C-alpha cells in the first residue's frame, strides 16, 4: 500500500520536517502515527497524499511513485484515498449531503448511486438528521463527521485522518476514533495521526508509529 525508503522532506523555507523515514503500510492495516505537535505527523500524511514530494528517498503509494512528474497519476491515486483533513476543508455554502457527494462526482458513479452512498455514509456517522444542513451551521464535531462521511462514501482503499480528535472532548474523541477504525477491513487501510496517545492505548490489531523531530523513533505492531 505505502512504501517509504530513506524519505527526507525539507520545506522551501529550509525546515527539515522528516529525516530518513523508512516505513511500510500493508493493505487493510490500521496504523496510528503519534508524536507531539511539530514532530512530522502531518508532513507524513502530506507526502502520502502527494501534497508534498520527498526531498530525497523514494515513496510509493499504491504502486505510484510520489514524484513531481507524475502529478496526473497522483491525482488518480487520490481518488482511492479518503482524506480527513485537520481543518476539514468542507465546501462552504453547501449542505452536508452536497459535500459528501462532491467527493464522488468524478468517479463515474451515477447520480442515484452517489446520493445513496452519501446518505448511507452520513447515517453511518450519525448525521441522518443533518443531511440537508449547511456545513457552516454544524458544530465542530458534526463537521468532523461530515468530513469522515466524505472520506468513506467512495469506499477508498486508504483512509488518512489527520488529528481527527483535535478540539474534541474525551468521549467524542473516542467515538470518532471508533468510527474511523470501524472502516478498516481487508480492502481498506486506515492511517490516523494523533498526539493524544491516551485515546489509543487500548487499540488492538494496529501498528503504532511514534514520530519525534522528524524521525520514527518507535514502531510497534500489535496484532492479537
Amino acid at each position, binding site marked *: 500500500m505505502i512504501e517509504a525508503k530513506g524519505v527526507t522532506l525539507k520545506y522551501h523555507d529550509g525546515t527539515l520536517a522528516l529525516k530518513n523515514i523508512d516505513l511500510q503500510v500493508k493493505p487493510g492495516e490500521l496504523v496510528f502515527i503519534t508524536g507531539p505537535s511539530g514532530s512530522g505527523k502531518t508532513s507524513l500524511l502530506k507526502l502520502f497524499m502527494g501534497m508534498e514530494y520527498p526531498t530525497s528517498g523514494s515513496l510509493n503509494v499504491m504502486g505510484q511513485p510520489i514524484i513531481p512528474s507524475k502529478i496526473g497519476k497522483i491525482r488518480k491515486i487520490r481518488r482511492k484515498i479518503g482524506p480527513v483533513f485537520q481543518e476539514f476543508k468542507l465546501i462552504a455554502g453547501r449542505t452536508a449531503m452536497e459535500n459528501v457527494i462532491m467527493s464522488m*462526482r468524478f468517479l*463515474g458513479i451515477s447520480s442515484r448511486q452517489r446520493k445513496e452512498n452519501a446518505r448511507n455514509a452520513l*447515517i453511518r456517522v450519525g448525521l441522518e438528521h443533518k443531511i440537508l444542513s449547511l456545513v457552516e451551521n454544524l458544530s465542530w464535531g458534526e463537521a468532523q463527521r461530515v468530513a469522515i462521511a466524505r472520506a468513506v462514501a467512495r*469506499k477508498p482503499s486508504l483512509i488518512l485522518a489527520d488529528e481527527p480528535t483535535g478540539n474534541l472532548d474525551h468521549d467524542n474523541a473516542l467515538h470518532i476514533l471508533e468510527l474511523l477504525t470501524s472502516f478498516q477491513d481487508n480492502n481498506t487501510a486506515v492511517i490516523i495521526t494523533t498526539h493524544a496517545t491516551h485515546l489509543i492505548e487500548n487499540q488492538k490489531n494496529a501498528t503504532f508509529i511514534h514520530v519525534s523531530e522528524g524521525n520514527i523513533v518507535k514502531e510497534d505492531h500489535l496484532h492479537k
Partner: protein
Amino acid sequence: METSFSTHTTGANVGGVSMKNIFFNLGYFIKEAMKIIKFNLLSNIFSLLGTGLILFLLGMVLVGGSISNQLVENLKEEAEVSAYFDENMDNQECLKLVETVKDMDGVRDALLIDETDAYNKMEKVLGEEAKVLALFDENPFEAYIEIRIHLDTMDSVLEKVENLEGVNYVRDNRAVLERMQAITEGLKFLGYLVIVAVGITTLVIISHMIRQGIYNNKDQINTLRLLGAPNSFIGFPYVIIGLLLTMGGGILAIALIVLLINQGYGQVTASLSFIPLPPSEELISEMVTLLLGVSILLGILGSLFGLSSIKKNR
C-alpha cells in the same frame, strides 16, 4: 443498520474527464457556473454588456462589408461600354454591328440606343436638373451601342470593339468601378482589423472574469484537487461561464443588429433607393449565424485562456 457503498467504475477518458462524468454531472456544472456568476454578479453583468457592445461593433462592420460586397457585385453587372459609330451608317448596318458585338466573348448584352433614347436616358439621370436640356435647340446626343459586359473581360472587349469597322469611339465606366472596388477592399481590411480587435478584447475580458472566479473559489478548487478531481472537472464550470457571458453578449449584439438593420433598411430605401441592398432576412440570418458562432468560439477560447492559471498548481 446495514449500509452499502458501491465501488466506482471508470469509462473511457477524454482529457481526464470521462464522457460518463460529464453526463452525470451536467446539472452540477451548470449550477456551479451560476453560483460563481452570482458571487460576482455586477462584474459579470458588465462583462456581458461590454462583450455585447464589442460584438455589436463587429456586427456593424460585417453588415457594412456585406452591403458593400453586394454593391460591388451589382456594379460589376453594370459594367458597360458605349460604342459610338459612324453617323452615316444606315439602320441595317447598325443592327448588323450590334449583332456582331453581341456575339463577342464577355458581352452579356448589346443594345442600340438612338438619339431620342439617349436624350430620354439623360433626362432620367439629370432628374430635376433635366430642364437644362431645353437650352439646346437640337438634340445634342448621338446614337451609340450600349454594351453590357463582365467587368473582368472589359479589356478584351474594348480592344475588339475599338477595332470594329464603323466604330469611331469607345467609352467605358471602368474608373468608377475600380474606385468602388478599391473602397470595398479598404473596408474589408478595416473589417479584418476590427475582427482582430474584437477577438483580443473579448478574450481579455472573459479570461479576466474566469481568473477572478478561480481566485474567489480557490479553497474549493484546492479541496477538489486533493480529492482527486482532474483539472477538466474543476475547469468545466468556468468554460460554461465563459460561454454564457459571450453568448449573452452575442444575443444582445444580435438584437441590436436586427434593430439596426430593420430601422436602417427603411431609411435607406426611402431616401437612397438606388443603393442595392441584400435582402434583409438573408442579412439578418447571416449575422445571427456569424455572431453566435464568433461568440461561442471566443467564449471557449477565453475560458481556456483563463483556466491556464489552474494548471500550475498541484
